[in-house]
């Protein structure tokens, strides 16, 4: 053993830790964020090289094979389409959690039967969080990729079943802390946690995905931090804590944006929507408009706010929306985008899709920034968003989404809603917005409808 090498490895870890913190710091603004990625990459490289020269490593064959294979799988996963980012993210939560769970299992196997109590406690925490995040994230990815049914699957007593499973795995873990020689119990913990992960995600529908993905992100981070305690690696503890904190903040943001209490989110009680909504079905008249009429109104406006939702992503309409943005901007119309925190399938999803369509990010505003602007707005154009614009959330105490913060599109002078049909949105809640006198329904596929408006605007040719 060369003492100098040991210290060098420690210094490499120290630098990696600093680089990780800087990486997050630089993520705060789009102007420095790419530097943040570089810092993260460099930190990762330092840490991996530092680990590879560790004298404990006697066999490089498998390590090299793992690194090469992982890179080969990683590249295509880094090249997926932007619309597929939510499922890719869920899948990578699953991979991260898998890694942590496997290492935890290996460490237990090496240490058993004489595992000190504290070690056993963090090991259990590591594998419980890791295993439930692994299957939970796989389920989430499956739902997002639409391999699994998107609709929430609920049954009576679901919460009790889920909660008892969690309690069971923690109780078994507690027993194992006192009796670490009962090796078989470790397998029991693993099995229960894997099952819990599946059952936890079953009742969750697409609209709850932003919260769930953030929560799984947090769990993945915390399990990595627990692994840091097991291996006594400060680098891992810090990286895991940063990831856990980030996921935690995002989950809190998302649950606030959906008016769910955080404990409601923590205990996985998602998708619990009262079924008593469908009763208010009425056939009130709505006003609809053609692309020509919509184009004429938009061209005459001074200020337009576009409100995109997941429907825009489904219809792949973002590039047509960019064309509309260009056509209106050329005519001197002030076009902005108002984005609800839970629009899309993960936090910030809409921003990425619009940025990909080459819409400048200084035109993208989050809910709190833009809500004050609607009263001075000529046209609010809603594309594929529903519940996040529903005024019932503000004034109808009987509405299941009552209290949820919304984009105040109803305060604009004219509201246009592009929608396939009058069918209610994901939550199955009717939207009173559609029956306003100043609301124009634009029925059709978002992509082709926006395309038609753009053609009309171009055909006008007096700019």
């Amino acid at each position, binding site marked *: 053993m060369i003492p100098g090498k040991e210290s060098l490895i420690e210094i490499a870890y120290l630098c990696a830790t600093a680089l990780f913190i800087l990486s997050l710091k630089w993520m705060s603004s789009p102007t420095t964020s790419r530097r943040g*990625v570089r810092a993260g990459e460099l930190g990762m490289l330092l840490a991996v090289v530092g680990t590879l020269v560790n004298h404990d490593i006697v066999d490089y064959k498998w390590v090299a094979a793992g690194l090469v294979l992982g890179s080969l799988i990683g590249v295509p996963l880094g*090249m997926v389409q*932007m619309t597929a980012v939510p499922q890719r993210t869920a899948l990578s939560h699953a991979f991260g959690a898998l890694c942590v769970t496997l290492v935890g*299992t290996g460490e237990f196997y090496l240490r058993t039967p004489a595992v000190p109590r504290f070690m056993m406690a963090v090991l259990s925490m590591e594998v419980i969080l890791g295993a439930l995040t692994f299957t939970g994230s796989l389920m989430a990815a499956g739902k997002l990729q639409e391999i699994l049914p998107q609709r929430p699957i609920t049954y009576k007593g679901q919460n009790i079943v889920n909660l008892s499973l969690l309690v069971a795995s923690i109780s078994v873990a507690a027993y194992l802390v006192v009796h670490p020689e009962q090796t078989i119990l470790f397998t029991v913990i693993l099995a229960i946690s894997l099952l819990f992960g599946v059952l936890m995600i079953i009742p969750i529908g697409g609209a709850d995905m932003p919260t769930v993905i953030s929560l799984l992100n947090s769990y993945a981070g915390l399990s990595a931090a627990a692994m840091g305690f097991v291996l006594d690696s400060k680098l891992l503890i810090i990286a895991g804590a940063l990831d856990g*904190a980030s996921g935690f903040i995002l989950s809190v943001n998302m649950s606030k944006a959906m008016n769910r209490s955080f404990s409601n989110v923590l205990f996985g009680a998602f998708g619990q929507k009262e079924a008593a909504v469908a009763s208010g079905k009425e056939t009130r008249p709505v006003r609809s408009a053609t692309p020509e009429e919509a184009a004429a109104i938009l061209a005459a406006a001074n200020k337009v706010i576009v409100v995109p939702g997941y429907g825009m992503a489904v219809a792949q309409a973002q590039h047509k929306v960019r064309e509309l943005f260009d056509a209106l901007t050329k005519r001197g119309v002030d076009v902005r985008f108002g984005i609800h925190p839970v629009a899309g399938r993960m936090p910030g999803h809409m921003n990425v899709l619009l940025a990909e369509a080459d819409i400048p990010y200084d035109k993208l505003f989050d809910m709190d920034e833009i809500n004050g602007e609607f009263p001075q707005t000529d046209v609010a154009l809603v594309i594929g968003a529903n519940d996040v614009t529903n005024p019932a959330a503000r004034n109808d105490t009987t509405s299941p989404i009552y209290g949820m913060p919304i984009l105040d599109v109803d305060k604009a002078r004219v509201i246009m809603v592009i929608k396939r049909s009058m069918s209610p949105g994901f939550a199955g809640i009717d939207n009173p917005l559609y029956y306003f006198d100043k609301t124009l329904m634009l029925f059709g596929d978002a992509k082709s409808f926006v395309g038609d408006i753009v053609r009309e605007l171009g055909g006008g040719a007096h700019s």
Partner: protein
Amino acid sequence: MRIDLLTSLYVFMLACFIGFELVRKITPLLHTPLMSLTNALDAIAVVGAILLAGEHKSTFTTVLGTVAIVAATTNAVGGFLITDRMLKMFRVSGPKKP
């Protein structure tokens, strides 16, 4: 051992606070790249996996470690790649730079 544990707890607590402070400042605009970045950073768990596979203490643990390396490396490579691809797309208004 006991001292180490306490130090680790302090480190964990401080890192959580730093994480909260840093992430709170991040604009919602970048929340998707943020999540893919922290995901990539989380792949630092590969360090533990490399040790487990490389120490070669038993076939079982070597297999576990190798699979763990694959999983974590996938995250690191894919995570940094897609984060950078996303961030490259964010631009301000005005004339396009070549």
